[in-house]
């Protein structure tokens, strides 16, 4: 018998996590699309966003709602530095170089975080009441709803920025044909910088928002990167809309797969999908052929 409340709960879990996956994956897919780099260090921005928010709230005693955007700002500053120091040099570098450098960077950031903040998992204190809310037997909390709303809002805002703004259009143009973009006067290094920091900002936002219920710790970035890669492949490498759809799909697939199939193998679902897609449908699931 299918218990509807439980089924609903799985769906809700899937959407919540799916939004987070999407938010992290958007940046990864953009960096991939615009710079042609598979950034294995992307998840570290998610981790650093979480830590930044945690320390702003606990050490500086900042208001939670001020700390969240401020945390993103801090990570953006760092992302700009990383872009200028490292990623700038990766322009037109072979796949081997970019992959190795980003893997190295990921280890570096993880261990610097470990040195600075220790291995202890931290939960960002937040002003939301912890008492769960229930609708028809489906439980959630104000914080979950807030997180879902913020991630969804950021996804929409990100989408609008990419679709409507001058720089957003320049990014898409650069992705679709870099030389043509250069020939209308788009400064490619500027586009790289914007795409990279924008992606880092979204990942950091995910870390800051989710850090209220998924503890923040130095190793979380690596796991997030792998999931984000799965999402990017599902959605098609470089596709913004694909990353959103892919994120939700992976979140739901994992939630339902774990709920009705096997929790131990839930992570394998995505990786199998990745292999099959890259072999047979590299443009992702959502692109019209």
């Amino acid at each position: 018998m299918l218990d509807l409340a439980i089924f609903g709960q799985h769906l809700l879990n899937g959407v919540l996590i799916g939004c987070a996956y999407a938010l992290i994956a958007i940046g990864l897919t953009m960096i991939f699309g615009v710079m042609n780099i598979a950034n294995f260090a992307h998840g570290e921005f998610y981790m650093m966003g979480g830590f930044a928010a945690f320390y702003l709230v606990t050490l500086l005693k900042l208001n939670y709602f001020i700390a969240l955007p401020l945390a993103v700002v801090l990570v953006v500053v760092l992302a700009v530095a990383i872009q200028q120091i490292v990623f700038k040099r990766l322009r037109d570098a072979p796949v081997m170089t970019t992959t190795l450098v980003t893997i190295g960077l990921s280890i570096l950031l993880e261990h610097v975080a470990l040195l600075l903040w220790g291995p202890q998992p931290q939960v960002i204190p937040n002003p939301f009441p912890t008492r769960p809310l229930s609708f028809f037997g489906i439980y959630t909390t104000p914080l979950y709803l807030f997180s879902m709303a913020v991630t969804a809002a950021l996804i929409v805002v990100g989408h609008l920025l990419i679709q409507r703004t001058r720089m957003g259009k320049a990014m898409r143009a650069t992705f679709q044909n870099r030389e043509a973009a250069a020939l209308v006067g788009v400064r490619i290094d500027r586009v790289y910088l914007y795409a990279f920091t924008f992606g880092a900002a979204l990942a950091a936002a995910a870390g800051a928002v989710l850090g209220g219920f998924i503890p923040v710790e130095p190793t979380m970035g690596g796991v997030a990167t792998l999931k984000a890669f799965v999402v990017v492949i599902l959605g098609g490498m470089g596709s913004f809309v694909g990353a959103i759809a892919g994120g939700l799909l992976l979140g739901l697939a994992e939630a339902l797969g774990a709920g009705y199939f096997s929790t131990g193998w839930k992570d394998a679902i995505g990786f199998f999908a990745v292999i099959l897609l890259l072999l047979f449908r590299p443009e992702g699931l959502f692109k019209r052929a």
Partner: protein
Amino acid sequence: MQSRLSVAVIALAVAASAAAQETVKIGVVQPLTGPVAYDGNIYVNTVKMLVDDMNAKGGVLGKKIELVVEDGACNPAQSVNAAEKLVTRDKVVALLGAFCSTSSAAMMEVARKHKVPHLTAISTAAQLTEQNNPYFFRAVATTPMLGAAFGGELPAAVKGKRFAFLVINDDWGRSMVSSYPKPIEHAGGQIVGTEFFQSSDLQFLPYITKIKAANPDAIILAANTQHAVALSKQIRELGITKPLIGEGSWTSDSYLKLAGPAAEGVYGLVEYVYTIKNPINAAFVKMSREKLKDNPSKFAGAAHNAIHIMVDAIRRAGAADPEKIRAALTKTDYHGLVGNIRFNEKNQAYGQDVYLARVTHGVPEVVKTAKIAKP
């Protein structure tokens, strides 16, 4: 005049340090990095604090004790490398540690090879003491021993029949799932669900939802701090109000602080909790609060047991000689933090107390004590 005095002071200090070079070296392998680094660091800091205290009181065999600490990262290969280095290069006379059972399992082969006694007070995988390794000792109850001691008490303690497991997917979680059901069922309970989470998970909503569908009266968990915090919060957030019973860090200060209200009412099945009443513990708690600014956790308790049992053996051996220490260890009859500890023929500790503690107003209160029977 003054300068001459300071020269004398320096000369004295040099002489003292020269004398101190004759030390008894004990090697420690714990995860200082990696997924369980937090708890590994607690262990290391506690051992360091206790050794400083012992040295202040004259050390052992008239020598200072010197700790050499290496990072094993909860990774078998790294732990092996660390142990090799400690034994062959630092010439330690005894090894403490490895946190994760897999690391201890790998490390004990090094101990056997080099004939150096190796004591763990944390790794609980049952098969560790089944390897016929005369150099390996375990000063902690295994999960099956805990299960045998307390499993039967659980239905009465939580006034329920239906139990579900939500445990980490490793030797610990799996041995819990294989050893607890029998005593529970014997006491009239039943198991209605079993879920294993991965150590890389910090988001448990699918597991919890699945457990919820089974509608248990209580959930039995195996998790250390980082998982325990996320688990208890997320379980409450999905509207499950049933009691939680955990092996692991469920009564440690770090957990209680991080989990906040979600920790209220949680039961911990532990080998040590800082609220037990005895003079050794009172002194230990006082020292920890002063030096480490924290109430000792279960891992601090393990550290206390480990270093005391080892130093006690060295003292009884009468020499800093690995073979003699090993022989002395087998004859351990140590009365300490959690009662009396001896080793059986497989070098497995027994006789100590274990506790069922319930978190009340943020403080773990002992609700039941049991003694580990000789296996």
